[in-house]
C-alpha cells in the first residue's frame, strides 16, 4: 500500500518561486541490519527520485541507505507556465511509484 503525499501550490504568478514537497511511504531498509538468526536483512530502499514538468526533467535525486524511512523530499522551482508535475520513485525489488499534480500559472 505505497502512497505518496504531494504538496504543490494549485496557483502561482508567473515568475514566482514555488516550493514542492513530496513524501513517499517506504521502509528504507538499509541492508546493514541482521536478523536474530544472523542473516542480513536485505537492502530495500528507494534509489532514485525524479520530477518532470510538462515532460522535461526539472529535479532528480539519488537516495542511499542512510536516508530515513518515508523520504520527504522538497525543492524549489520557478513557475513559468501552467502544466503538470510528474513524480517518480524507483527502488530495490522492482519498487516503482508515480504521482502527479497540476499547477495554474497566471
Amino acid at each position: 500500500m505505497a502512497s505518496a503525499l504531494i504538496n504543490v501550490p494549485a496557483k502561482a504568478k508567473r515568475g514566482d518561486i514555488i516550493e514542492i514537497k513530496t513524501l513517499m511511504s517506504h521502509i528504507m531498509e538499509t541492508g546493514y541490519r541482521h536478523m536474530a538468526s544472523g542473516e542480513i536483512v536485505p537492502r530495500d530502499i528507494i534509489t532514485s527520485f525524479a520530477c518532470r514538468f510538462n515532460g522535461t526533467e526539472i529535479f532528480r535525486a539519488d537516495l542511499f541507505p542512510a536516508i530515513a524511512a518515508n523520504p520527504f523530499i522538497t525543492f524549489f522551482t520557478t513557475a513559468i507556465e501552467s502544466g503538470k508535475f510528474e513524480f517518480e520513485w524507483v527502488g530495490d525489488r522492482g519498487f516503482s511509484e508515480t504521482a502527479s499534480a497540476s499547477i495554474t500559472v497566471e
Partner: protein
Amino acid sequence: MRFIGIIVAALLIPDAVCAAEIPQAERRSGYSFMKPDTRAIQDDDTANPGMLWVLDGEALWKRKAGAADKACADCHDNARISMKGVAARYPAFDMALGRPVDLEQRINSCRVNRQQATPLPFESRDLLALTAFVARQSHGVAIETGGDPQLAPFIARGRELFMQRQGQLNLGCANCHDDNWEKRLAGSAITQGHPTGYPLYRLEWQSLGSLQRRLRACISGIRAQPYDYGAPELVELELYLMSRARGMRMETPAVRP
C-alpha cells in the same frame, strides 16, 4: 550515623515534596516540548508521515473483509461523521467483556464479531492505519475519556500502576512525568506524558506506533518486564493517562522525536 541520616533524608524528600499531580492549568502536550522543526513536521499534513497511515486506513475502511464480506464503511458509513470524537472517549468500557478496551481492541472486536475476520496483530501496519484513520477524525476534539462511572475502578488501578515504583531502576511513571517534567533525561525532554496524539509517528521508530508500544518502551527503560500487548494493565494505564489528559485536544497523528 549522621551521614546515613542525610542520605535517608535525601531519599525521602523528593517523594514527600514533589509527589503531586500536575495542576489543570499547567498541563502541556508533548508537542510544546518539541523543537520548532519537529513541530513543523506535525503541523503540515503533507509533511507529516503519520498521514501515510491515515491514507492507508481510509482505504482499509472501505475494503470488505471477513466471512461477513463487510467493510467498516458498510455499517459506520462516512467516518468523518460517524467517528468524529470517538477516539477522544477511548479506552471505553466494553459491556460484553466487563472491562475497558482501547481503540485498537475495539477495532479488532468489530473485525471478529461483525466482519467475522481474523483480528489484526498489535502494531501491524493495518491495525495502526485503521486506528490512525479513526483517531484522525477526532483531531482537535477535547479528550473526554473516563466520564463513564463504570470505569472508575479501572482508572484507579491505572493510577496505582502509574505511581508504583518498579524495575531495576525502581522508578514509577510519576517520578518522571509528574515530578520532573520540563527537565531532561539523556538530552531528551521529559514530558508530562499526555497521550494526545496516538497512534503517533516517532522519528526514533521511523514508523507510526501505538500508546502501548510507547508504554512498553518506557517500562523497559526503567528495566522492568513490559506487559504483553493487550494486557489489562496496559489498557488501565492508557485509561488513566487519557483521563488525566481530559480536556486536552487530540493531535492524531502526532509527530514526536
